[in-house]
């Protein structure tokens, strides 16, 4: 993964101690201003969601009927209150914990499933590969909304199940990407050599092949987080979302629909948070794609 352009452009690398911070890929990423913006935003958001609720005088579930619909920047509530008089800022931050956790967890699970299926299918090929990939094809034939709706009917809506639900509908693309990569890589010399040396299948797959296919996987993972956060809001919109009183950006946005004219901040704030978070992940994904693809010429 060396790029001649990167090597010339970048600061001179210390030959012995090529620290990770100096890798050409990272340098390319850092030059991708939007990606850096995205990464910083996500970092700040995550920190705020983890730390923020401890610093606020209100909890996200405290109902104060007399204070309902207080507009932002008026009185004790910085971002106003919602239809039950709960502090919007506290709810947005708690919702952020849930929404980001859903995004990351769903991504992780879908990656694990997708990578496993893709690895096995790509490595063994033949009948196993064909069966697995036909299954992937069949799953991709369903409109993802159908899978979401149908499966949500089985399960009890909760944070864990929403995560599984989203992961269950998002692993197929990953499997396809990994399968294609592995299929191409396993014919290469280093894989053949490792096999000839008697390495076990698992070892070849995980130690030799997977690291070489990591670039597209990382990109897909980032985009999957974005997809999962958005999916959570759609599930909420369709009425199968995370149950109250737990807030999520999706269910806050969904519940705000009736107040679009009378209390627009109820819809604007979570809508903006979703858009901000998803955009950031998309920027990161875009930046990673450029950075990890050695063919991309740097600016």
């Amino acid at each position: 993964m060396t790029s001649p352009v990167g090597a010339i452009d970048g600061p001179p690398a210390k030959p012995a101690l090529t620290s990770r911070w100096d890798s050409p890929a990272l340098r390319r990423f850092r030059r991708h201003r939007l990606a850096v913006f995205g990464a910083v935003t996500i970092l700040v958001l995550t920190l705020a969601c983890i730390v923020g609720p401890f610093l606020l005088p209100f909890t996200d579930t405290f109902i104060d009927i007399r204070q309902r619909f207080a507009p932002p920047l008026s009185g004790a509530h910085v971002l106003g209150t919602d239809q039950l008089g709960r502090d919007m800022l506290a709810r947005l931050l708690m919702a952020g914990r849930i929404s980001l956790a859903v995004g990351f967890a769903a991504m992780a699970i879908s990656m694990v499933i997708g990578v496993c299926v893709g690895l096995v299918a790509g490595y063994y090929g033949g009948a196993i590969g064909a069966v697995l990939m036909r299954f992937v094809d069949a799953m991709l034939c369903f409109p993802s909304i159908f899978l979401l709706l149908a499966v949500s009917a089985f399960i009890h809506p909760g944070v864990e199940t929403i995560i599984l639900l989203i992961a269950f509908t998002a692993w197929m693309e990953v499997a396809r990407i990994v399968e294609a990569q592995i299929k191409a890589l396993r014919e290469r010399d280093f894989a053949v050599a490792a096999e000839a040396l008697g390495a076990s299948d698992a070892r070849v797959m995980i130690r030799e092949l997977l690291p070489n296919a990591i670039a597209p996987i990382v990109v897909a993972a980032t985009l999957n987080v974005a997809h999962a956060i958005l999916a959570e809001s759609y599930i909420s919109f369709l009425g199968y979302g995370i149950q109250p009183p737990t807030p999520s950006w999706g269910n806050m946005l969904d519940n705000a629909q009736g107040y679009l004219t009378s209390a627009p901040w109820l819809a604007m704030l979570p809508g903006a948070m979703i858009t901000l978070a998803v955009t950031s992940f998309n920027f990161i994904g875009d930046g990673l794609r450029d950075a990890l693809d050695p063919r991309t010429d740097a600016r």
Partner: protein
Amino acid sequence: MSELDRNAKRSRLSAPSLRRREFLVLGAGALLGARSAGAETPPPPSGRRGQVIVGLSQEPTVFNPLMPGIEVDESVWMNVFNALWNPDPEGNLIPELAAEVPTVENGGISDGGLAWKVRLREGVVWHDGEPFTAEDVKFSLELINSPGFRARTRQGHSLVRDIVVKGPHEISWRMEKAYSPYLALLANTFIVPKHILGKASDPNTAAFNNAPVGTGPFRWSERVAGDHISFVANERYFLPGPYLEKAVFKYIPDLTALYAQFRTGQVDLTIGQGIPANFYEEAVKLPGRKVVANPSGNLEIIMPNLELPALSEKAVRQALYHAINKQAIIDVIYYGLHRPTESFAPKESWAYNPNLPPHSYDIAKANKLLDDAGWKRGARGIRQKNGVPLEFALSTTTGTAIREQCQQLLMQDWQQIGASMKINNMPAAVIWGEFYVRSKFQALLVGTAFRTVTDPDPATRFSSESIPVKGGSGGNYMQYVNPEVDRLLAAGQTSFDRQERTKIYHRLQEIVRDELPILPIFQYAPVEGYKEGLVGFRPNINARQNTWNMSKWYWAR
């Protein structure tokens, strides 16, 4: 039951579908909503003019009125077909296809309620010109009981024996046992044409089911699936009207979108689930629109599963009831539109008992009730008794935002008395499946009614023989068992004397108020709206939907 949120999306708000109503104007609506009456009312036009577009939040899809359908389908049935008689807003049965309503006094019902005789109206014709006769009534009743036909309900009809056509306009039958609610059930049984449906090889799939022919004020015109149904005036209707040339039922699946279209004037009326409560204040100020809250017979209740150890004890239910801040729920979440109630009967019913002890929001009293009953506070402040923690899940259909607010208020209030409630909402198709009918829920927050069509008889909801999960047939899903209640219900069904029945139902309401097999919160008054200039709109708490008198509507010129 209102919760006919066929899919959760559609009923983001918990308003019920409408059964019975009476005209009532609330709050600011009084000024705008007052029905132009008396001298101001312009006279109906001499001919048929104009059209009306009614916005519905559910799509009517069942057009054979004897097959399983939901309340919105009845909007079609009421206008294309006629029943023998129909209840008016005051609860009186008004003859339609019958010449008069049979009673014990006029001899129509005799032999202690076992023999029924009905004289039919003469000169009525079907939309295709064929005359309507007693044979059609006989055919309809027999079709309901025929084994292969997917009849909606055989409740009452299964008791009918020996139907005899005594002449083209007279019919009689015998009942297996005296059953007074049958009058109300017949008001909801629409008569279908024998000369069409009788010839169909399979009435379940007959072409008639998609192009109904009736005797009603409007004739079927066309249906654009998923969008609208249009009707044209029946020129030969046997009662006054219709005054409109055309009527359209427009399906708009989302209540917020429905309101937006009412606001922009794309629909002339919005009925049924109507205008979401949170838009009420804005809606009454709309120029050129009349917006009114019309009481329905549906109640918002908490339905506990009485077999759940935590909820089986009367003291627990009473304590939970005292800890419900009804006024906050009604005033804050529902914008003061609905009226608190203590009874399972609507206030407008002749059987309503106005002397039930009023509810008070009293946390201290609730705590004392639980202390006295031996429920001790344990870990995390949750009470326990004999190892049973005071914990349960409250379910409703997902996507009903206003009900979810209500659940969260309840949660906070009940926490104060050491009761832990969790929210466990599910999609409509799941809730109303086995979960409901096999009593698998712990507690439900629902809008529902406890009566037989418009008759006050609640036997299917409270009788111990109506518990499906115990082999019964009916809708006693909370599994309420009380021998005195059973006795009263049986007595109420066999009596045709209103005074006697009133006494029975008053006692019944007292027992239910005390034992709380259901925790009543309020009686619904959904907000409906129509354009100024539409004359004749008259809410009817005894009709399923307020299109019941569409034949009397016209536009003021």
